[in-house]
Structure formats: structure tokens, C-alpha cells
């Protein structure tokens, strides 16, 4: 049917307009305006060409142009292409045909737009609130421009909404938002029959801090500080994703040394996360050897971060335009990494030799490949189910094209696969780090950015330890941020987790949860 590239077909249509085609390194960006009436058709066509959803968001430009706009960003794997569809909506009654029936991965994004902008995705199968809680009044939409960030919003009476699950002998087990351990807050509702979980539903967004609103109106350099504070353990990947979006807006190329340093930061971050997670997954089954060895090795990496950058979480390094502070002690760190690699090998071989550990993890919490694909799961969780998707190779950014590394995958999609996935990914990370340290050349750390053209959009992304972190930015006047949307890896994977729990027993939930290692702060923002 469509041998011609999608955007050609559409750009020739009288109602559609091709806004812009640009290239950014090896990646081509296509922006296309489509009328509301053609939106579903366009999305359907993209789906048929194998595109996957990257992010989706809205802007309120009523004051400037009297419109709401919905932006949907897709990527065409294999073609190094990003396609952004822009749909203009009516200011009074903003609505459009929901794309969730076509692309299930959009379902939380569309609900969020409804909560935050009051834009109705008509035909969406589940329009319960997502991002605001029951005590939030109707008709107040925090991301609209006529809502001031410091508004004190009254609480109304309302309660948690769950889809009903009924049957004789069924119990509901509410857990959270405050949990017993040192973990983030979220409310889970287990529907159980005996020990077996029949259904799991979650109420999240407890740590919603209004990050996107907080960035609006800030100078892009100040908003970088907000980006860095979305998530503690993805600080580097969020700040790089944000910086890349701003650099695309400004149309500048970052110096090579800065790109290499960014790679080092991103991979150090992946490493301490993966090693921490490998240890933590042992906590899910009480295998103390793995817990304490994992924690020790992670602490060692945190201290290496400190020596490298002066910050355990690698903060204060990345700025739009490059890097603001050079790395230190590089040769020492790169040789110490070899010791860490050996140590990790030792620990994981002992772990995997434990029959009881393997028994607990095998066939627990299975994420089938089809579900991972349909719901747009990302990161190690998706790759452990056989979805070979990694933005470092799929839409290469930064300096990743310069390094030789593999993208490992697993088949079964159970907890054990996710453990093995992290082990194998760590091996690749050691390889990337050695190459980056070896070829780290002298040179400038950053470039000056020119003024940003107002009301332009750009997307920046990184593959963090948890998967794709996508930052979508629209510039405003005076180098300020007009709209900022963050879709983190956890945003993609949270809807997937509850589907992997039914059929398992309640005590396996912590283990399954840890194997996904979802971040609440990244999702809630």
C-alpha cells in the first residue's frame, strides 16, 4: 500500500503541511502538520510502517494564537528518522480522536493530557484520572497557561478510583503510599485469591512536584537545573537529554570532548544503577551475599563518580552546549573499572550458582514480548523480553556511533532474564567506558549557544539504565522555556508492570517490582 514514505504521501495532501525536515547528526527530523480529521489516519499509516511512539504532549497557545496543539512524536526504526505530528485543536472545546486504540502505548500520555490540559481524547478506553488525585477539583488544569504555578488549589472530597474486580473469596490488599522499606511512595491495590494475585492496580503520582510547570518561563540554563533534579539516579541521562533538546533548538554541535565526557557520565550512571539493581534483586529473595556485595560495589562506584566529577550522582556537569566542568582522575578511574569488572563477574557467578536464587527468579513475573511491544516497554525490561530496542543504536546520539558495543537481549522475559540482561549490559558498559577513556581527546568543553528561536520544538533523548528518557521542549521568547515535557523510561514501563504480576503470589511482588526497577520520581515529575 504505502511504498512511498509516509511524509511524502501526507505532505502532498492539501490539508497537511510539511513544516520542516532537518538532520541532526545521523538522525533526520520530520515535522508534519495534520488536521484533526486526518490524525488517526496518519497515526495508522505510521504504525503500519513500523514506527513506535516516542512521546506525546500538548501546548496551550491560546494567548498567542488562540489554539491548543497536540504533538505526537514517532521514531522509524531502521531509518534513523523522528517524525513529529502537530495537530491544532480548538481553544474552546479541545478534543481529538484518541490514538490509544491504535497505539496502546499512548494510553497514559493521553490521560495525562486530559488531566493537565483538559484536552479530551475521544474514544479513549479509560478516562479515569491519572496524574491528579481524587482530591483535585474538576476543571482545574495545571499546565494551562492561565493557571499560575503558585496557585493554592483547594482539596475536594474524592477517592481513589479502581476498576472493580469481584468474585467470591477475593480480597483486596491495599499497600502504600508509604512503604515499609526505604523506597519511593505509591499506592498498590492487590486483588487476591488466597496468595495468588488476580489483579494489581496502582495509584501513582504521589511525588508529583510540578516539574514541567516549574521549568516554564525559566531561562533554558536555569531549567537545566530542574531537569537534573527530576530523578536522582538518572541525573546524567535526564540532563543530557534536556541539553540535547536545547542544542537542537539552537542548531549547534557540541565539541567532541564534551560528547565523550557525556558518554562517560551516562555509562557510569548505567553501571552504578545496574550493579545496584543486581544487588537489590537479591533483596527481593533475601540472598544476603548478593545484597551486601552489590551494595559494596555500588558504593565503590559512587566514590569513583565523586573522584571523577566531584558529585556522587554526577550532577553539575552537563549544560546545554557541552560540559561545564572537566573530569578528573580519568586514568586512575579507568584502571579501577577493570577491578570492578572482575569483582562483578565473581559476585554474579556466585549468585547464578545458587539454585534457590535461580528457582525463585525463573518463570516469575513474565513480560511476554507481544505485550512489551504493544505497550511500548523500554530499556532492560523490554530487551529481557526479546525486544531489541536501544536508542543508543536505534537513533544514535552523542558519541555512541564512535564506540563498538553490542545490545544483548534475552528471551523468556522473567525476573531471571532481567537479572541476566543487566549483567550482560554491564559488560558492554565496561567496554564502552574503556573506549571512551582511551579516546578522550583534548579540546573545548562547551560551545556558546545563540539565542533560541521562539516557539520551536525539539526532542532530546537518552537511553538511561531504565530505558528511553525523552525530553520534548518548546522554546518561548527571550531564551525561556515555553513548554517542557519529560517522558521517562518509567513512564513507559509503569503501565506494563501490573500485567506481569497476576498469576504470581503476593510475596513475589517485591521481587518482580525490583526486577523492573521503576522510578516513581521520574514518572510523577
Amino acid at each position, binding site marked *: 500500500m504505502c511504498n512511498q514514505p509516509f511524509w511524502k504521501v501526507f505532505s502532498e495532501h492539501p490539508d497537511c503541511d510539511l513544516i520542516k525536515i532537518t538532520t541532526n547528526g545521523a538522525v533526520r527530523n520530520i515535522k508534519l502538520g495534520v488536521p484533526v480529521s486526518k490524525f488517526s489516519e496518519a497515526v495508522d499509516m505510521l504504525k503500519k510502517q513500523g514506527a513506535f511512539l516516542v512521546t506525546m504532549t500538548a501546548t496551550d497557545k491560546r494567548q498567542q494564537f488562540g489554539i491548543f496543539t497536540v504533538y505526537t512524536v514517532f521514531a522509524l526504526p531502521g531509518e534513523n528518522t523522528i517524525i513529529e505530528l502537530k495537530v491544532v485543536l480548538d481553544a474552546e472545546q479541545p478534543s481529538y480522536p484518541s490514538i490509544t486504540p491504535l497505539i496502546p502505548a499512548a494510553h497514559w500520555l493521553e490521560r495525562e493530557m486530559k488531566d493537565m490540559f483538559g484536552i479530551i481524547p475521544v474514544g479513549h478506553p479509560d478516562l479515569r484520572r491519572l496524574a491528579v*488525585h481524587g482530591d483535585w477539583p474538576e476543571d482545574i488544569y*495545571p499546565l494551562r497557561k492561565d*493557571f499560575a*504555578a*503558585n*496557585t*493554592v*488549589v483547594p482539596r475536594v472530597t474524592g477517592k481513589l478510583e479502581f476498576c472493580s474486580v469481584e468474585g467470591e473469596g477475593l480480597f483486596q490488599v491495599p499497600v502504600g*503510599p*508509604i512503604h*515499609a*522499606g*526505604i*523506597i*519511593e*511512595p505509591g499506592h498498590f491495590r492487590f486483588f487476591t485469591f488466597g496468595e495468588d494475585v488476580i489483579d494489581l492496580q496502582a495509584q501513582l*503520582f*504521589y*511525588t*508529583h*512536584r*510540578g*516539574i514541567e*510547570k*516549574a521549568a516554564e518561563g*525559566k531561562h533554558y540554563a*536555569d531549567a537545566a*537545573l*530542574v531537569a537534573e*533534579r*527530576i*530523578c*536522582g*539516579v538518572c*541525573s546524567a541521562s535526564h540532563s543530557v537529554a534536556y541539553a540535547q533538546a536545547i542544542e537542537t533548538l539552537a542548531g549547534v554541535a557540541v565539541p567532541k570532548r564534551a560528547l565523550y565526557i557525556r558518554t562517560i557520565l551516562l555509562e557510569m550512571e548505567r553501571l552504578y544503577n545496574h550493579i545496584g539493581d543486581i544487588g537489590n534483586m537479591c533483596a527481593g529473595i533475601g540472598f544476603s*551475599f548478593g545484597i*551486601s*556485595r552489590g*551494595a*559494596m560495589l*555500588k*558504593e565503590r562506584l*559512587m*566514590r569513583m563518580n*565523586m573522584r571523577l566529577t*566531584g*558529585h*556522587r*550522582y554526577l*550532577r*553539575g556537569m552537563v549544560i546545554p552546549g557541552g560540559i561545564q566542568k572537566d573530569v578528573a582522575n580519568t586514568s586512575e578511574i579507568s584502571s579501577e573499572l577493570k577491578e570492578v569488572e572482575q569483582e562483578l563477574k*565473581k559476585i554474579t*557467578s*556466585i549468585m547464578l*550458582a*545458587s539454585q534457590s536464587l535461580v528457582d525463585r527468579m525463573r518463570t516469575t513475573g513474565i513480560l511476554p514480548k507481544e505485550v512489551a511491544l504493544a505497550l511500548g516497554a523500554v530499556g532492560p525490561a523490554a530487551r529481557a523480553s526479546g525486544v531489541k530496542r536501544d536508542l543508543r543504536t536505534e537513533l544514535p546520539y552523542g558519541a555512541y556511533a564512535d564506540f563498538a558495543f553490542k545490545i544483548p537481549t534475552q528471551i523468556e522475559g522473567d525476573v531471571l532474564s532481567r537479572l541476566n540482561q543487566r549483567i550482560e549490559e554491564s559488560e558492554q558498559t565496561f567496554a564502552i567506558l574503556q573506549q571512551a577513556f582511551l579516546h578522550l581527546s583534548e579540546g573545548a568543553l562547551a560551545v556558546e549557544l545563540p539565542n533560541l528561536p521562539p516557539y520551536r520544538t525539539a526532542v532530546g533523548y537518552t537511553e538511561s539504565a531504565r530505558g528511553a528518557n525523552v525530553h520534548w521542549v518548546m522554546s518561548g521568547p527571550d531564551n525561556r522555556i515555553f513548554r517542557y515535557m519529560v517522558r521517562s523510561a518509567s513512564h513507559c514501563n509503569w503501565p506494563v508492570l501490573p500485567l506481569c504480576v497476576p498469576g504470581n503470589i503476593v510475596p513475589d511482588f517485591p521481587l518482580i517490582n525490583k526486577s523492573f526497577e521503576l*522510578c*516513581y*520520581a*521520574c514518572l510523577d515529575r
Partner: protein
Amino acid sequence: MLNLVKSLINSRIITEDSTSWGEGFGRGLPIIHQESCLADCPKCENTCPTGALKNKVINPRGCIFCHSCLRSCPVNAITETEIPVISSSVSTEQLGQELRSKLKKDCRRSLHIRYVDAGSCNGCDFEINSVTNPVYDIQQYGIDFVASPRHADMLLVTGSVTRNLEIALQKTYEACPKPTLVVAVGACACGGGIFKEAYAAGGGVGKHLPVDVYVPGCPPTPALIIKGILAAIDRG
């Protein structure tokens, strides 16, 4: 199994005590050296994203340790210094200073902590997790984390207290036996951080509960968190 036992036997004790923490206290608090500072220069104040720097004085509870001010100074009059933990001098709780002193006295040898994430970025929480790792091993001080607020002598709170966690935090506090010590961990908990007070963010723990000790930092290092906890029970 054999390898596991071998590996256990070969390992050394790696727990450090507070005199040997190898890494200092992380990215420090900016300090303005008034003698070299230019009288009418507004640069650092203008660049500060939080308003923590006003009239050439830095409020450690408002600072997010971005070091923008250090870089903005044309004469390098700003350097950094160790981050202090701040004991609040006036505790607003009605239960009275006397009871709190008694608690501090009773808890000298052991302390049970209930941790609450009131809307953090997870950075502070990971560092709180780190204080339980074998290197810092907070249990060496007779201190442990408990699952229920009913067993807790102290609440350790991170985050700016978001709208969606305000009630949960209050309820946790109410569930603790009184008097309860409250320690605010991190820039967000100390003064709201970069989010300040907004429709969703609550401006810091001090606006919601009586705080005994503030531990600034973004995030504070595990060493500083332990220092803050010990300061709250007068063992610092």
C-alpha cells in the same frame, strides 16, 4: 556454595567509622569572602536560581548546591566549605523542650527511624539507603530503620512535601509515639529546593512539621546524613 564460602572468608571488614570516611562531604556550601567581594556587584545574587543568596549571605537551607554563584563571581570571591547540619533552635512542638531532651537522653544508645519520602527525586533516598550499606553501616551506632511509625523515635523526611504526600506525611507523624524527632534530609526537605512552593510542591518539611535538624545537600552524602542523625540525639 564453595565459592560463596571462600569469598566470604576472603573478604575484609570494610565498615568505616566516621573518622575515616574517605570522601568528605560532597559538593560544598558556597561561602562569600567579603574581603575580596566587590561592593556593588550583583552577579552572584542575580544568578542564584533559588534566592538562597541574598545581600551576599547564603542561606544553607535554601541552597541547592548548583554552584552557579561560584562560577558567576568575576573576582573569585566565592569558594566552598563543608555543608553544616543545622539544628533548629526553636522547636514549635507544644510537647515542650523538656520531653524532647528526655527523648534525646533516652535514645543515646539506640534509635529507631521511620523514613518518609515526601516527594523527593529519589537522590536523597538512595543516599539514605547507602547509610545502611556495609561501608557506612549505620547499625554500628545502634541505629536502625523500622517499618512502622509506631516503633519510631525519629522521622527522617526527604522531599519538599508534595500536595499528594502532605496527608500521608501528617498521618505518619501522628502515628509516631510522641515526642518524635524530625530530621529533614536534602535541599528539597530543608527549604523546598528549586521547586519552592507551587501548586504541587510544599516548600519543605519545616512548613508542615516541627523539624529538629536540617541536613542540607543535593543530595547530602551518607556521611552527612549520619552526622545529622547523630546531631539530633546529641551524639554528633
